[in-house]
């Protein structure tokens, strides 16, 4: 009996080791442990065993059963692991195949540059304000200390709608509108479209953008103007950027200046971009002219302020090294995709 048990058991274990599929394992289970299985039959033949031997034989049979079941489970796990491994191996992909990307659009480089400017000035507490693009002559000129027949009007080649209404030639009229509407302290920037009758070429466009800035408060100094614009330049062009202020003339500021930044391409050594000078002109600025303050209803004895105007396209062209302004208004997909 015992010999028979061992023999069956060995036979089953041997078959388990060679079984190579779940089905084969199942067959073995049925063949030995099933109702008509060999082990079950041995158990059934217990009645032929002497009663006093039965517990011992029963124990033997149960041990054999447990051994077989244990090994059966083990084999199942082994086969499952092997199958998983096989599956993973077969599912290997070439990860260098091309990506499937969503078609995502691109922002206009002017807007990217503008958003960067806005971010900097908003961080410094400036509000972003807009004004009309078709503007009264009064706001575009008169209130900015550019009376009728002032030569500066010729310099700007303004588009006229009639004698009182123009296409604004600068964003500076938003200064005046803001001062009329708000009480100091004022800190604002006013980005927007402006128009001048320049023929279209690589460096001119009759329609372009400026960003105006205005700060009005008690005790604002020229040093504040310098400090603010220096911080701005370093934010925009990098912390190593140097700035240079040159005296200039604008009718609506006094003193006035133009600001150059050290060339961000060559770092000031001189290159094609800065035409060898190491400096790039970036903006015009100055202390708001007392006449302008007074005309806008602000007492120049109580308040002072500074203003600046940035040519957005200039920043865009320089920052992204675009060599022809016309590209900005053609909207060629191959151009826009690069930003």
């Amino acid at each position, binding site marked *: 009996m015992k010999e028979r048990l061992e023999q069956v058991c060995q036979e089953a274990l041997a078959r388990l080791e060679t079984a190579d599929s779940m089905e084969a394992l199942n067959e073995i289970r049925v063949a030995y442990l099933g109702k008509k299985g060999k082990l079950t039959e041995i158990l059934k033949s217990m009645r032929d065993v002497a009663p006093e031997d039965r517990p011992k034989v029963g124990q033997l049979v149960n041990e054999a059963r447990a051994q077989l079941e244990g090994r059966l489970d083990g084999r199942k796990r082994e086969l499952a692991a092997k199958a998983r491994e096989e599956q993973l191996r077969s599912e290997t992909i070439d990860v260098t195949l091309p990506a499937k990307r969503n078609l995502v659009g691109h922002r206009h480089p002017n807007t990217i540059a503008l958003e960067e400017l806005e971010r900097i000035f908003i961080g410094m507490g400036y509000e972003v304000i807009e004004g*009309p693009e078709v503007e009264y002559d009064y706001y575009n000129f008169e209130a900015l200390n550019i009376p009728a027949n002032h030569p500066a009007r010729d310099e700007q080649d303004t588009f*006229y709608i009639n004698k009182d209404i123009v296409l604004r030639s600068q964003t500076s009229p938003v200064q005046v509108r803001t001062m009329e509407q708000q009480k100091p302290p004022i800190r604002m920037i006013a980005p927007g479209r402006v128009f001048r009758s320049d023929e279209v070429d690589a460096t001119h466009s009759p329609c372009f953008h400026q960003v105006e800035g205005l700060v009005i408060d008690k005790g604002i100094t020229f040093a504040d103007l310098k400090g603010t614009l220096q911080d701005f330049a370093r934010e925009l062009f990098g912390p190593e950027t140097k700035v240079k*202020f040159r005296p200039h003339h604008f009718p609506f500021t006094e003193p*006035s200046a133009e600001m150059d930044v050290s060339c961000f391409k060559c770092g000031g050594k001189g290159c094609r971009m800065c035409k060898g000078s190491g400096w790039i002109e970036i903006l015009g600025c100055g202390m708001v002219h007392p006449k302008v303050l007074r005309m806008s209803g602000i007492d120049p004895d109580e308040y*002072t302020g500074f203003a600046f105007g940035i040519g957005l396209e200039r920043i865009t062209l320089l920052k992204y090294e675009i060599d022809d302004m016309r590209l900005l208004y053609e909207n060629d997909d191959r151009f826009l995709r690069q930003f």
Partner: protein
Amino acid sequence: MNTPYSWIKAYVPDLDVTPQEYTDAMTLTGTKVEGYTRLDKNLEKIVVGEILSIDPHPDADKLVVCRVDVGSEVLQIVTGAPNVAVGQKVPVVLDGGKVAGGHDGGPMPEDGVRITAGKLRGVMSYGMMCSIEELGSSRDMYPDAPEEGIYILPEDAEVGADAVELLGLHETVFEYEITSNRVDCYSVLGIAREAAATFRKEFVPPEVRTVGNREDVNDYIQVEVKDGNLCPRYCARVVKNIRLAPSPQWMQRRLAACGIRPINNIVDITNYVMEEYGQPMHAYDLDQVAGHKIVVKRAEDGQEFQTLDGQVRKLDSNVLMICDGEKAVGIAGIMGGENSKITDDVHTMLFEAACFDGTNIRLSSKRLGMRTEASGKFEKGLDPNSAEEAINRACQLIEELDCGDVVGGMVDVYTTALGPKRIAFRPDWANQFLGTDIPKEEMLKYFEKIQLEYDEVTEEVIVPSFRQDLECEADLAEEVARFYGYDKIPTTLPRGEATTGKLSFKLRVEEVARDVAEYCGFSQSMTYSFESPKVFDKLLLPADDPKRQAVTILNPLGEDFSIMRTLPLNGMLTSLATNYNRRNKNVRLYELANVYLPKSLPLTELPEERMQFTLGFYGEGDFFMMKGVVEEFFDKIGLHGRMAYNPEAGKPFLHPGRQAEFSYQGQVLGYLGELHPQTAENYGIGERAYVAVIDMPAVLPLANFDRKFEGIAKFPAVTRDLSMVVPHHVRVGQIEEILEKKGGKLVESYHLFDLYEGAQIQAGFKSVAYSVTFRAKDRTLEDKDVNAVMSKILSALAELGIELRS
């Protein structure tokens, strides 16, 4: 404005700086130097040579072989120049030296031309004799140069000496950008004054003496000014026994360096003084001036006048004229007349130095289309006091150069003399304004250098008349700042009350529009605000369409840019067409820009500017893709409800069966559709294209960024499928409207899962299937709840002739 360094140095004798130092320092005090040219940049090893002999070339008829003494040695030089002769002194470039250009006067190479010894037709030549063109100049500037051939130096030139020096070409010419307020700096003296102040050197202007014989000018000429506003000052002097001749070399060289061609002594003196003082002068042949009388008055309307360039000009009463006893002899401040111009046989000359109203000159010269050297100066508004100084300086030069006999005295019509003005100045205020700490004495030193006096008693600065740009204390603060140095002013940040940095709500919504468009594959475009009136035809707008009412530009760049757009589509379609022509595939663009809608025409108030969010594409995608982008945008700005689409949008430029106007809560927000094939053809877009236009001002009052969490559904949903047979003309939008209205709160969502028209469906009908999800927030729905709602929905559908499919 150009000045040679030597001319500045004539008035600032201690000036000793390199061109770059000059450029940098002047720019930092406000006289912007645009650049400079060294006239001797490419002139190397050029000396005075004397031609000792000339022999024929053995193998070339047109060449000769010269022996030239260059001081250190005698060289053999082969030349083809026709004008050489033994004994002449000539400029010779030695072996290894450099000249500026070729002998033909063509464009000059950047690095000049290197000259080396070499054979010319078999005969060695050890250098080259130079023409004026090879020396980098021209016969215009050196009128004594021969038409062709070598430039001949004066007989007394020293052999072996530096020929470049002799020719006055060791010179640097600076080019300035003078700001319009600094009229005084459109002159050599004005710039020299700034240079002296910049480098803190002494300023030594020419000493002007009043010359003249014992005669009285009033016996020669009478002057009457009829319009003192347009001519604040008129000075006249007379020179007789004119002796025309070339002006001296030094004067010719200075004029040439400024780009002015030397003509003769009288013309040159006039030009010289104009450069020196910035004061234009005019010379008349006194014998041609009828009645020896000058009258300054306005022209008659329609009057014609021949200017000295031979052209006949039509005048009007705003043009100021210089007349004699009978007729007009010149347009004041712009150009003299043909009838009184100086000719070679002039005997007696009338010199005019006047001050005309700058604005009048500017407007007249613009109207007449005549912008001359003189008008360019007058239009800036000259200092009337410089007229007297300039005319006296000219007469002094006439006497010194012996070009004629100056008659004593000056006729001077100067009704209201312009004196110095006084401006209150508080040094403390200036320091506070600039954010500096400059001692008062220092400030006064800067002022003194530019001839501003300070009155300690009244605490005022006394400003001479040539500085008409200085008007207020802030102007004086600028004078302090620029001579203290903008670079030395500290950098601080505004103190005081903090302010909130922010974007307006409108700009925030526009930012979302950009984000959504880009996530959906659209790139941002920018187009001009003005366009051609022809676009209305291209867009098929009927003749009476209100959108044809556009703001017109008076002085456009051309008809193509003459009206302000009332529709945003032309820019979009033009950009799409550009891309299509360049064979770019699947192009999707958007633009955020204004249209300009006049409230009335002609314009009496500003037009309404409405921001339009315009999308357009061709290539992959269809109407419903575009519709999806529009809804995505509305969803992101808080318009979560159902948009209504009206197919009767009435847009002539869109496909009549594929367009819709969309609205939200009854408010029209824009339209979308497929481009009408005719419009596409008009723009040259060869594929189906789709556009959407969202009117942002209509959207803004509905938009919001407030969001509230509504919880996640806890109770199970019930889904019912509705398979319907729908009359063909009924739009699914009508079904959805019923689902929303009749379904009420219990309808959580619905979606179209089948749409079919064809064989199994009877003609005139279509099969439409919706899956509707019901859910309550507070309980599990029972069949009876859903059935009640379903029956309401079904009866409403039945009214539209819709039946459930059996």
